[in-house]
């Protein structure tokens, strides 16, 4: 068996071949060079690059401030450290929020069809405008989605809405309405979903990449939790607070991301569009479904 057989395309093999000759090492290093360059090129964008540089400089700044303040705060730190150790003994260090978002993004990039239970809520302080809607959302990378559920409390009023990556369509049972148009006419969707539920939210890849790399979002990994589904490992809870509402009107977000795989098991997005009014969208991962591009196409 040669090194070529061990180290295939996706470079999945991690064990060392028994004897690598100099030529094989050279070949492998060259494959790796191009592999690293291609991975880097596929994930390079200006916003990501700037955020990366800022993160590095922030960690350097934190180290500098830490050193400067060390002389004065040594005793306090020792005390705090001791208290922290006593209080939080056993709690492991959490991974960085950015790294978890990056893992989730990578996982969401794979070409599979995933389903989520989607709940959209609108609450007012007075309680007069409270609305809760539940849908089943199936998505695939490339702006493909299918949304199915009841649009109001009328059981006859069923909605199916989808997008095949280019064309957006909607089918409603009561009143009987059908509509289709290009994806850039998504404002039309407000007629079906109301003004607080945007098709942008169905593209989780875009939501994660925007919140993860947009400069004015404060991201924090806040908690490690045990997995709640069969076979699920520990998950990291990541919270995002937006300084502005530029990102699809989202003000707060919360994600649960499986630590080992990057699987996004839960996402919650919320905002306060008007005083006294709160909207919240939650997406609870249900699993993968059989691949099929047809489900996203306009059915008529």
């Amino acid at each position: 068996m040669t090194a070529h057989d061990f180290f295939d395309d996706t470079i999945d093999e991690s064990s060392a071949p028994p004897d690598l000759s100099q030529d094989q090492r050279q070949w492998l290093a060259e494959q790796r060079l191009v592999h690293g360059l291609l991975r880097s090129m596929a994930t390079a964008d200006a916003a990501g690059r700037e955020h990366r540089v800022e993160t590095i400089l922030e960690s350097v700044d934190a180290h500098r401030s830490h050193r400067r303040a060390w002389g004065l705060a040594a005793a306090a730190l020792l005390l705090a450290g001791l208290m922290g150790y006593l209080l939080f003994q056993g709690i492991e260090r959490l991974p960085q929020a950015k790294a978890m978002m990056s893992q989730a993004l990578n996982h969401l990039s794979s070409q599979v069809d995933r389903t989520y239970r989607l709940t959209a809520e609108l609450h007012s302080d007075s309680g007069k405008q409270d609305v809760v809607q539940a849908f089943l959302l199936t998505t695939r990378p490339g702006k493909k989605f299918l949304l199915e559920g009841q649009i109001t409390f009328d059981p006859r009023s069923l909605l199916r809405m989808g997008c095949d990556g280019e064309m957006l369509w909607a089918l409603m049972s009561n009143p009987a309405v059908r509509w289709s148009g290009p994806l850039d006419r998504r404002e039309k969707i407000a007629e079906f979903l109301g003004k607080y539920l945007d098709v942008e939210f169905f593209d989780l890849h875009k939501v994660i990449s925007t919140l993860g790399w947009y400069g004015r979002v404060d991201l924090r990994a806040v908690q490690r939790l045990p997995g709640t589904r069969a076979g699920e490992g520990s998950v990291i809870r990541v919270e995002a607070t937006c300084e502005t509402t530029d990102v699809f009107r989202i003000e707060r977000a919360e994600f649960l991301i499986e630590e080992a795989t990057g699987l996004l098991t839960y996402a919650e997005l919320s905002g306060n569009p008007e005083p006294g009014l709160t909207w919240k969208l939650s997406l609870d991962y249900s699993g993968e479904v059989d691949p099929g591009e047809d489900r996203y196409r306009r059915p008529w």
Partner: protein
Amino acid sequence: MESHELFEILVRENADMVRAFLLSSVRDPGSAEDLLQEAFLVAWKNLGKYDRKLPFGPWVRGIAGKLVLNHRRKLGRSKVYFCDDEMLGVLDRSFAEFHTLAGDTFDQKLDALRQCLTGLTDHQRASIELHYEHGLHCREISQRLEIGFEAVKKHLQRGRNALLVCMRGKMSVGGVG
């Protein structure tokens, strides 16, 4: 110029290259981002030891390489591709060679790679695009292209090889950047 200002320039000039180096050795992209940050933090802490007459890139790449080995020891082989000191040395020389491509920034140097992609065979280019841009694994690519699994592996390997040969041609023709 203060050390901190100088360091910011060095980070901006070298972060993309070090990240690509890490992505060539670390399977998990999140870990690669963590190691990138750590490599520059270690570089900052040891800036006094850095000989300013020498290029900064290979120095910080050396730090990143040590962190990769450490990472592999700590987390096991599932997170890191096969590597040892010698392999990282060969990889480092390959990156040094890539650095001689024309272009002021890493992204400009990647233009050579972008141009070379157009010279691949259809199957090689499709396999590479599906794997790197769309995140498909070999099995999925073989289904999508309706070719065998082994054929996909070969297209990817030969495609990467052809890209390297093409970039080397540009190094000798395009001059040293």
